[in-house]
């Protein structure tokens, strides 16, 4: 009887402690803001995602009445959400399409990013021209020995249709090779990280990722190709010699106002731009 009571007491204490922690947690920050709670929904590119996540951390600390909700479903899906009104800010890693512009989206460039062409370390090739890359992705070259590598089929990996990285990549490919059209044998993955992991784990694979992400990843299983002899580095992207690059945007339906405008302005400020470069991207005003 006494043992049982002791047991109940112990458990009760634990429950109370846990409950207390939660109640404290739920209440502690409530008292700080006298004003209303604002939520900003952000949706879109997986390339821009790490930037906005870090922005959220700093911004919410600075402005406790604001909550930023971020989901990364791809540039195209993000734009669609902004048009439909389910998100206030869309993140894109490519330029707005004509139809997106005519639907009312307004772009704000917050940074620049290179696109790195990465290959699994089983591939011995280190340098390709843009045209060669375009032909590989069109399916014209299907074996590495056609571009100076070993005799092995090329494993083609790319992004899903909503991806801004893909959109930007394919636009650049079309500029380099007018007959470009994506091969149907390309495996499609839905985020920068998924693609990176896939190239890391598939021998003789080739893929394309955000330069910022490959720089951050320090991967030992893949290497980025030189394009036309030029290394894929931030410096080369800034000075323009590395031509595979695109703008990173935050887009709103109509001109940005209120909380969304404040957020975008902050991203464009020195603090925000520092986050952009810390994450491995290129700030706007460099």
């Amino acid at each position: 009887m006494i043992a049982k009571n002791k047991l109940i007491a112990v458990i009760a204490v634990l429950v109370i402690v846990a409950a207390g922690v939660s109640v404290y947690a739920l209440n502690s920050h409530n008292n700080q803001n006298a004003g209303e709670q604002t939520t900003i929904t952000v949706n879109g590119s997986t390339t821009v995602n790490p930037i906005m996540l870090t922005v959220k951390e700093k911004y919410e600390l600075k402005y406790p009445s604001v909550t930023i909700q971020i989901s990364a479903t791809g540039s195209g899906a993000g734009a669609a959400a902004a048009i439909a009104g389910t998100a206030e800010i869309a993140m894109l890693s490519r330029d707005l399409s004509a139809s997106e512009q005519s639907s009312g989206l307004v772009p704000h460039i917050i940074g620049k990013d290179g696109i790195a062409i990465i290959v699994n370390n089983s591939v011995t090739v280190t340098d390709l021209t843009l045209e060669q890359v375009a032909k590989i992705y069109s399916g014209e070259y299907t074996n590495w020995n056609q571009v100076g590598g070993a005799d092995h089929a090329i494993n083609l990996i790319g992004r899903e249709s909503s991806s801004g990285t893909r959109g930007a990549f394919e636009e650049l490919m079309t500029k380099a090779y007018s007959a470009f059209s994506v091969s149907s044998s390309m495996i499609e993955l839905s985020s920068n990280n998924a693609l990176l992991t896939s190239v890391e784990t598939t021998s003789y694979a080739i893929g394309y990722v955000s330069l910022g992400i490959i720089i951050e990843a320090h991967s030992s299983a893949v290497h980025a190709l030189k394009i036309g002899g030029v290394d894929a580095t931030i410096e080369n992207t800034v000075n323009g010699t590395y031509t595979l690059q695109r703008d990173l945007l935050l887009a709103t339906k109509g001109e940005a106002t209120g909380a969304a405008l404040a957020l975008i302005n902050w991203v464009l400020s020195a603090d925000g731009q520092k986050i952009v470069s810390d994450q491995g991207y290129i700030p706007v005003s460099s």
Partner: protein
Amino acid sequence: MGICQGGLGRKRAVSVDAITRVALTAVASVAVLAIIFIILFIADNGVGALRDVSLWDFITGSTWRPYQDAYGASSLIVGTLLVTAGAVLFAFPVGLGLAVYLAELAPAKVRRFLKPAVELFAGIPSVIYGFLGLVVLVPALAQLFPGQTTTGFCWLAGSLLLGVMALPEIVSVADDALRAVPATYCEASLGLGATKWETIRKVVVPAASSGITAAAILGIGRAVGETMAVMMVTGNTALLPEPLWNVFATVRTLTATIAMELPEAVTGSTAYSALFLLALILMVIILAVNLTARTLVARSAARFTGAEPGRIERRLETLKESCGTVRLQVLSRLLRAALLFALVFFILSLFVGSLAAFAAAVAIILIREACGRAMAQHFGRRRTERAAHVCLAILAALMVGLIVAIIGYVAVRGAPALSWEFLTAYPTNAGKSGGIFPAIVGTLELLVGTAAIAIPIGVLSGAYLAEYTVVRSRGGRLIRDAVDVLNGTPSIVFGLFGLATAVVWLGWGFSLVAGWFTLSLMVLPVIIRTTQEAVRAVPTELREASRALGASQTQTIFRVVLPAALGGIVTGTVLSLGRAAGETAPIMFTAVVVTQSRLADSVFDPVMALPYHLYYLASEGRADPAMMFGTALVLLIIVLGLFGLATAVRYWSERRLR
């Protein structure tokens, strides 16, 4: 005429007992409602996909590329089956051997320490298995078999992990089945001069065969429904392996597909519906698996209690008779040979080519069939027994070693990260650096809410099932079936349901309440089942004593039965909370975010949680190992702490009643 003759008290028009019964029935019906709603919502959300593709094409099509509008799930279904088959092939013999050791051979002192160790095993969260698989197993496979896999992500990795995860369940159920075999069977066999090992092989194990098969099938169910661990190690390509038995091929399971693609699917799109359809297929597989297991367990129970066999059991018996005993023996021998063949083949194919492995496996089977008995006799019965005993003891030691290794590795690599700052600071750098304070708090907040909802409903439902459905009423059976189905439902299906219902339909968004909603449903069947068992275990004499003193049934339940069952109830409750703390899939789509700079202000805010944070760091965030191991260690401490508490409670309560 108010009072009867002799002054006997009058019955009230509506007795307290009637009210209690109605109330408890209502509470217990929550389980039925839950399963109905789950199936309804999943089906409702899933049929949308059938606008674009027929069901037949969906199941048999081989290309799964949702963004190209190709919805052929066959490679996913096959992937699930392959990974499960590999897991069970490995876990069943090992689990059976461990169960035999635990039930029959282990000395009492060893058993008292080994059994809780097995249950501890069951407590390790799947995301930690996945994480360790990612950082230890996968690179190890890449190093050991460089010719066959460059990266180590493969079907084999998934099966090994799943096998280890299914092991505790198989061992527990098989152990129970073996111990249920009456001692008289053993005594009869030993009395005829058989050795203990022969008795085990030829009498005890066959007698417990229904229960053992049920164990295997439940292990299968667990493997089929597993999400996180397989997602992190199988490579996730939606392709059929070539050749089909190449264990080093990368595969993708149904569960991994749902988990990976749901975050990116636009709500309401065909891709979104297709994932719900996958969940439906998953449920169908699990239901079939559970139904088989239940029939077998019922048969095994009936055999020993002499209860009236039900319809299915009787049909099985007539089937058995019509087959004839001889034919059945041949069948069972063939089955055993086939299993052995598969095992040997797969193991050998790791090291030599498939053709050589095939030939060697066939050779081994033939030798065993032809000369097995002669070899055994030559070896000697006593020596066989001793050899078996030693082998199984080694197996048990290996398992304990594995548990120690797992926990130890996480502890050793995670301890350096456990600074006060790590535990109390907020994350920075998109969640990859800094501290995990909000994740710890979030996990606790999820637990408290889940407990508050699931415990009352679960305990009262379990009490209802144990007290009122002794008579086999339709309603009681319905509730019991619903609880069984809920119990077997994979955690990712709960996650989907939580998303469709709490987040979208009820409009709560990603929030703490949505997490509570989903997690309570997930732990409900566990609490119901353990309460049921605890209440059933209360001796009838206590109930009779209470009734004989003039207490109503309500008073008896609440003042005698439930307090007496408290130990078992608390154990089950704490165990289920331990499980809830470690689950990722249910909260992935309902409650969690990747990073927070302040704690949730209200229950409608999302939270961070340790299991999801670990998953994110390991697969998306590519974080510093110290952070990952630190997170894993904190999670492990919380979960194992809860499991330890449950075991301690059970130990105390057993001592009290003795």
